[in-house]
């Protein structure tokens, strides 16, 4: 996945040119040398002089090595967008005009970023006139807007006895786009609404799928006339076909709760992680098939993403989903308002852990007006605690029963509830919905 966004210009390297300031090491060398030598001379004790000798020579060499260091550091992150589960080439470059005995690079990172080897703090020596490039080994573990840096560099020269001023390199912003879960549905959608596409519409018109044969009426195209049937029946008959249309899909992402651990790719998956990755996978699939997709984030606040069509819009969807998070404050959404905004005849896929009563109400409202809805249960299987006492087990059992009852009521209203992690569950549900939409219905007369 690539982004069309223009990357931020890389900030210029930070340079420091200064003499190091003496630190505790220098003070220790000076004090021990002076004290021992003065004692040796005043008390006429050569053993004190022998004790002082390494410190004095160390101090002398330290002073000799002290120069005017010109150091510059640079943080390079090769991209501003990355899909989670991938690495980012990020390096810190340190250049110095004189020897530095220890350059300590302290790399701080935002949430969802892992440094390989857990080496957030690393040290190396830099020879004068040399440039050292340290690979930070940045791995994007979880989706979100995050950052690499700031990088704080402290340098010690001249036998570690002099410190250069700490240099801080500002952070580089990084968008970790969600990796869409695999979803390869081939099921036809219940309602085809737009003018062209791949789904078989129940409207009859131009298309390839045979729908039936009927007598010719004024306005039918001559090429639709089936001459063999017409000659057999003695009057003109035309072949009818199903039109091929696109569908519109509305993905409801319930970000009101986030249940379970969130450890990024390869680790525990929370309900919000599952919802975002599922939304990405579903959006990618339907956009690839030529359908239109809208995404609605229903948490404590309410966010809408405009109608998307075409593969290119997948990046817009992925970037928009980055802002899906547990809100701390915002307007409380009401189901009726969301239901009014969902286009009629669009397929609604509600990605929810089924923990918010408003979400259940919203689904019920949509079903009441005949909208095809599938609830995708994003509650991770390992989110339920296992080590419980007697009362907690009782409470958990009651909660599980209530949740099962809610799911059963939704199924009864014609809304399938499928777990996201169950392979093929959503595909089966979509086929069932498509079949139900074409089944004969009892008409009220």
């Amino acid at each position, binding site marked *: 996945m690539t982004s069309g966004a223009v990357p931020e210009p890389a900030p210029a390297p930070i340079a420091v040119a200064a003499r190091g300031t003496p630190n505790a090491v220098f003070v220790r060398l000076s004090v021990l040398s002076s004290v021992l030598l003065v004692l040796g001379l005043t008390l006429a004790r050569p053993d004190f002089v022998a004790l002082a000798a390494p410190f004095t020579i160390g101090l002398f060499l330290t002073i000799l090595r002290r120069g005017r260091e010109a150091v510059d550091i640079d943080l390079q992150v090769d991209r501003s967008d990355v899909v989670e589960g991938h690495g980012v080439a990020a390096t810190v470059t340190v250049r110095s005009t004189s020897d530095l005995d220890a350059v300590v690079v302290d790399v701080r990172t935002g949430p969802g970023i892992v440094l390989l080897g857990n080496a957030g703090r690393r040290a190396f*020596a830099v020879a004068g006139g040399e440039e050292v490039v340290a690979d930070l080994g940045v791995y994007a573990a979880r989706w979100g807007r995050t950052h690499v840096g700031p990088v704080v560099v402290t340098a010690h020269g001249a036998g570690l006895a002099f410190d250069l001023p700490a240099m801080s390199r500002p952070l580089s912003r990084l968008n970790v786009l969600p990796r869409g879960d695999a979803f390869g549905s081939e099921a036809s959608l219940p309602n085809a609404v737009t003018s062209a596409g791949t789904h078989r519409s129940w409207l009859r018109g131009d298309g390839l799928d045979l729908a039936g044969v009927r007598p010719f009426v004024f306005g039918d195209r001559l090429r639709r006339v089936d001459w063999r049937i017409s000659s057999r029946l003695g009057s003109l008959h035309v072949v009818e076909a199903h039109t091929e249309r696109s569908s519109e899909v509305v993905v409801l992402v319930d970000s009101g709760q986030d249940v379970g651990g969130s450890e990024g790719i390869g680790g525990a998956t929370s309900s919000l992680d599952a919802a975002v990755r599922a939304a990405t996978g579903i959006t990618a699939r339907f956009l690839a098939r030529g359908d239109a997709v809208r995404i609605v984030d229903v948490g404590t606040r309410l966010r809408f993403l405009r109608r998307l069509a075409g593969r290119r819009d997948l990046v817009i969807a992925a970037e928009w989903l980055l802002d899906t998070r547990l809100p701390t404050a915002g307007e409380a959404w009401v189901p009726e308002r969301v239901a009014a905004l969902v286009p009629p005849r669009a397929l609604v896929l509600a990605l929810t852990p089924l923990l918010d009563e408003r979400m259940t109400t919203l689904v019920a409202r949509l079903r009441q007006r005949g909208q095809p809805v599938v609830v995708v249960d994003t509650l991770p299987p390992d989110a339920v605690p296992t080590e419980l006492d007697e009362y907690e087990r009782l409470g958990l059992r009651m909660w599980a029963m209530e949740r099962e009852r809610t799911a059963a009521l939704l199924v009864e209203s014609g809304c399938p509830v499928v777990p996201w992690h169950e392979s093929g569950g959503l595909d089966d549900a979509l086929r069932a919905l498509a079949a139900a939409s074409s089944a004969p219905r009892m008409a009220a007369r």
Partner: protein
Amino acid sequence: MNRMAAMTRFRPGVVPVSLLVVHIAALVAAIMVATSHAGGTVLRPVLLFFLVSVGAFAIVWPGSAAGLVVLLGVVTAYGVLTSLGSALDLAASPSALQVLLIAGCLYVAHATDALRAAVGGAVLDSSVLRRWLRRLAEALLPGLAVGVVVLALPPGDGGSPLWLLGAVALLTATAVPAVRVARRPWRSAGQD
């Protein structure tokens, strides 16, 4: 010249633990040898208690003032015990080898403390250790050589000008750099 730092050379935590062991070993060796000739007198446990207590601070917080205090404490203990040896009826004064051992251990403890303070718990590239060992050897080996020379000369009762000359030279070597490094507030920061 461009060099890619081999950051995976050492696993995190291995080198800091090794440095910690070296730091403890050097301090303990210096303390034990410096107080060894106190024998079984009551003075030794008192000195050991004081030095080990301060040494523990120095090991837990490298780069702190405790590092200086414990080194000065070892030197003071050595000085007191050797000066008052006859009055306290102690064993014979330490041999030249023991003095050199104390000097070496004190300097190793000092250098290890400096490195631990500088790098903290960072993952170390081998270049840091190589440079540190070189700096250590550059000061320690000539220092011990000077110590051998000084200790091999006749005792300094004022009649041996050679060791006195060496001591003055070392004192000068200390004083000159100290004057060079001393802060001069009347000079602007830009000039330095």
